[in-house]
């Protein structure tokens, strides 16, 4: 059969998540082979692509490429449905560290011919990709700049799947579905206020706000996406890309759209242990139909339905006295002994569960032996491990080939086997206190165990690494700090070497894009940097030095501080520096005076700012120099009247 190369739908699957949310499980074996409800992720992805009408798939592996190739070869011999209808290309590159690198590589190799689907291997979905891609093409016809359509599923905001991941806030034009604002929140963020820029509301007749979206990490891309990544080497992750495009819409001449899935379509992405748990449950409950526990086995009906969403493999053996409460999946050749009680768990192939064992909310992979009287709650046990008698595990992640000694009591720890001396040791264990705090905070008992691991990765959470794309391990505040440092460095160097201010502005702008800083923040930080140049800390006469600096950097300041709001930013920066820097203590009034003289700030803004200070009782209000300055200002204005 002749295949029309032009019309074949292409998909690019990125096989790594570039984060360590699933370490140590994913350190040695590829993430793509992580088993969700008994089936490796890659099987779900390939099957759903084949179902969705995709004709050619490019799998991009950054780590463990050979293992994935081997696995695919094995599966092709089994003649799975996707191997007949889909071309699969496996690409490997060890140098890629982020999703941005992958896209640049794809661009360099010229692998995609036109519109394509971009997804991670962690996306589980039963959507029709071909139809969605066609929709995206239609959008592109209307708007030449449309670069990407993001695929979301709307769910209730209380749904476990949204509760377990970072919430997204999205503002979009209701008529065209063009994204105007995209924001991700930190998990359990205390931010209660969302700032919506006024021009969004002014420029669009109808704006839709979404806060209850599931991001499945699937995007429909135009041919312009890989070159965009190549042109902007600071795009590391998909979020970088989204923010970069939204900020520089005019410069890059591209924009983003989104689409919501229909009611009967399912989509989710495995991003952390919590979503892992939710998705396992969804698959067992058949929400992702036709993806199911039989995916990847050519439906040879190895499972028997036992009611209450319990499934057991045909050749597993269950003791008469064991209890399966609900949502239990038992793999082939597994054996469950007397009086075992299993709830919401997945038991892998060839497992042996001893008598009187209690297992709740846990995921036990292949060839694991659990001896008598163990209790396992909310844990993940990788293949070939052995849990000896009377152990109690709670919220524990156990890597492969680990031997847990009898009567050990583990709570919220990660157990790895150290290969070097062949002796199994507890290598990483978090402090119990931290873990308990976490469990108190958590509202939902069900999740406590794996929640721990989740909270553990909370630090990388704020770094965006939940989005399975980033490696840049710098939390958001660090980003701004680094930006500040960089600005200070360039200003100091510029001052010493008497560089031209135009160059400095260029330098600051480029660091701004590198760290993804908003314009108002730039204003703030530039002024702050001016007041923190290292010479100031050394010099005796701070004020005169500031005056010099101010004079020298006049072009820089006037470049940034132009509008009313930027003036306010500037004043806030002065306030911030005066409170925090030792060398400026008590000199706030003089500095403001300098600014006033230099015509950087005007009277109205000053008064407004002063009011603001008084409102939230800034310590600055009490400072004599400030009081004096404002008295003087008052007099001066009265005089001029």
């Amino acid at each position, binding site marked *: 059969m002749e295949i029309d190369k032009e019309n074949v739908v292409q998909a690019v699957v990125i096989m790594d998540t570039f984060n360590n949310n699933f370490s140590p499980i994913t350190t040695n074996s590829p993430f793509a082979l992580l088993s969700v409800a008994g089936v490796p992720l890659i099987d779900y992805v390939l099957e759903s692509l*084949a*179902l969705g009408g995709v004709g050619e798939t490019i799998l991009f592996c950054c780590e463990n490429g050979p293992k994935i190739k081997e696995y695919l070869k094995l599966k092709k011999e089994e*003649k*799975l*449905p996707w191997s*007949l209808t889909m071309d699969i290309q496996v690409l490997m590159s060890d140098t890629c560290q982020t999703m941005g690198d992958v896209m640049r590589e794809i661009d360099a190799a010229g692998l995609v011919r036109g519109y394509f689907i971009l997804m991670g291997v962690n996306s589980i979905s039963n959507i029709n990709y071909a139809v969605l891609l066609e929709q995206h093409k239609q959008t592109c016809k209307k708007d030449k700049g449309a670069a990407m359509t993001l695929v979301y*599923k*709307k*769910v*209730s*905001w*209380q*749904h*476990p*799947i949204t509760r377990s991941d970072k919430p997204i806030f999205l503002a979009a034009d209701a008529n065209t579905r063009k994204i105007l604002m995209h924001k991700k929140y930190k998990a359990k963020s205390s931010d209660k206020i969302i700032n919506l820029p006024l021009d969004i509301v002014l420029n669009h007749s109808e704006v839709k706000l979404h806060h209850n979206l599931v991001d499945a990490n699937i995007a429909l891309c135009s041919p312009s996406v890989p070159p965009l990544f190549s042109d902007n080497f600071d795009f590391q992750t998909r979020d970088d890309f989204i923010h970069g495009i939204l900020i520089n819409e005019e410069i890059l001449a591209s924009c983003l759209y989104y689409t919501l899935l229909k*009611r*009967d379509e*399912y989509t989710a992405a495995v991003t952390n242990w919590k979503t892992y748990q*939710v998705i396992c*449950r*969804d698959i067992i*409950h*058949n*929400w992702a*139909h*036709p993806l199911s526990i039989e995916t990847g086995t*050519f*439906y*040879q*009906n190895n499972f*028997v*339905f036992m009611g*209450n*969403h319990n499934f057991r493999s045909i050749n597993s053996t269950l003791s008469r006295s064991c209890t399966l409460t*609900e949502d239990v999946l038992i793999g082939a050749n597994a054996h469950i002994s007397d009086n075992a009680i299993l709830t919401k768990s997945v038991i892998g192939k060839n497992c042996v569960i001893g008598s009187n064992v209690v297992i709740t909310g846990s995921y036990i992979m292949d060839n694991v032996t659990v001896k008598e009287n163990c209790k396992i709650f909310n844990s993940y046990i990788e293949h070939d491990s052995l849990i000896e008698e009377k152990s109690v595990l709670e919220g524990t992640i156990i890597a492969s080939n680990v031997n847990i000694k009898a009567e050990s009591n583990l709570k919220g720890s990660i157990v790895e086997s150290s290969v070097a001396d062949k002796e199994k040791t507890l290598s990483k264990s978090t402090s119990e206190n931290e873990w308990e705090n976490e469990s108190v905070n958590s509202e939902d008992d069900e999740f406590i165990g794996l929640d721990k691991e989740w909270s553990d990765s909370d630090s990388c959470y704020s770094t965006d690494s939940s989005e399975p794309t980033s490696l840049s391990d710098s939390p958001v505040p660090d980003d701004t700090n680094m930006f500040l440092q960089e600005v200070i460095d360039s200003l100091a160097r510029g001052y010493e070497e008497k560089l031209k201010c135009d160059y400095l502005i260029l330098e600051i702008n480029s660091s701004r894009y590198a760290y993804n800083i908003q314009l108002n923040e730039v204003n703030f930080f530039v002024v702050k940097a001016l007041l923190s140049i290292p010479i100031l800390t050394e010099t005796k006469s701070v004020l005169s030095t500031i005056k010099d600096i101010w004079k020298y950097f006049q072009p820089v300041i006037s470049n940034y501080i132009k509008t009313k709001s930027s003036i306010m930013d500037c004043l806030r920066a002065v306030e911030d520096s005066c409170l925090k820097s030792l060398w400026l203590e008590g000199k706030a009034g003089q500095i403001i005076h300098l600014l006033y003289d230099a015509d950087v700030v005007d009277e109205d803004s000053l008064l407004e700012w002063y009011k603001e200070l008084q409102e939230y009782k800034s310590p600055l209000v009490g400072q004599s120099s400030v009081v004096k300055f404002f008295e003087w200002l008052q007099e001066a204005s009265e005089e001029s009247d």
Partner: protein
Amino acid sequence: MPPLGSPSKELDLKHEEKIVQFVSNVRNGKIDGSNNIALKMLLLLEQIISECENATALELSGLVREVGRRVCRALPQELVAANMVRRVLRAIRDEHRAVSDQNGGSAEGATESLQRLVLAAAARRGTLGSAQQDLREPLRDHIAEVRAEIESGCGAVAAMATAHVHAAELILTHGSSRLVERFLKAARKHTHYRLLLAEGPDVKESHGMALRLSLLGIPVTVISDASIAAVMSRVNKVVIGVRAVLAGGALLARAGTHALTIAAKHYSVPVIALCPLYKLSPLHACDHYGFNALDNPRTSLSYEFSESGDVHVEAPRYDLVPPDHVTLFLTNLGGSSPSYIYRLLSELYDPNDHQL
């Protein structure tokens, strides 16, 4: 149900690919409706038979049986696929017997009796190997015959509508079904009746069917399937489509049908089940664990609601309706009562093929 008899046979790579393609098409809904599944399955078997190198009876029956096993394991709910395999196996046996009768002029009589069926079963299997003729040509005719039967089956059942739907009757049906729709349209040509349509799990399709029927001038009222019992006392006749009819006259139908037939039985309303012959399956309800398959729960609860994360949604795909709830089965051959199904089965299939 472990398969008995001959050990599993190795299949050609090409054949295996065809099976995979067929199964995934059915699973993904690219082939839907039992009529289409039956026709496509027949096509698959025909292709495989015509490509067979050594087309003796034994060889062919082994091959067809193996294909059947694979398909049935992958599609336990689609009983029509297995039925087609049984029909073809029966054709092979018949053809083989015809050939050996010609050759040896054996003692087997022209008529079949129940006694003969029982007594001859073992002997027939034993003799499957003796003749060496190429059976492909005559089998092609047999398969064409079966295909013609499937294609005409729905029409034949619909043609009986006039005999069962009378003027000014109130007819109740459940969910959408192509066959029921055709039946009701045929009835409209002769009589004026009113229709109550209880929406099944496939609400959209039910509404579509209601719309199409009302465009023909049939007064249609769509009701929720929760209110079936409330309206049942006024209903004159219930017409339902089935997924499969099992041995003994029980039937497998869309979820919700059992509740309907219970209500009908309570009010003594006659229930007419439309089942072309290809839907007759020789299995018993206890033979098969595939009957209690679960469907996607979205038919009852949308995933969007937060409840979907906390509750069990059991959305069974089929209901098993016991034989005493059905008044009449309408097959291609006319009406038959549930107790007569066994006889139809013995005409259609060879008892040796009941288990594939």
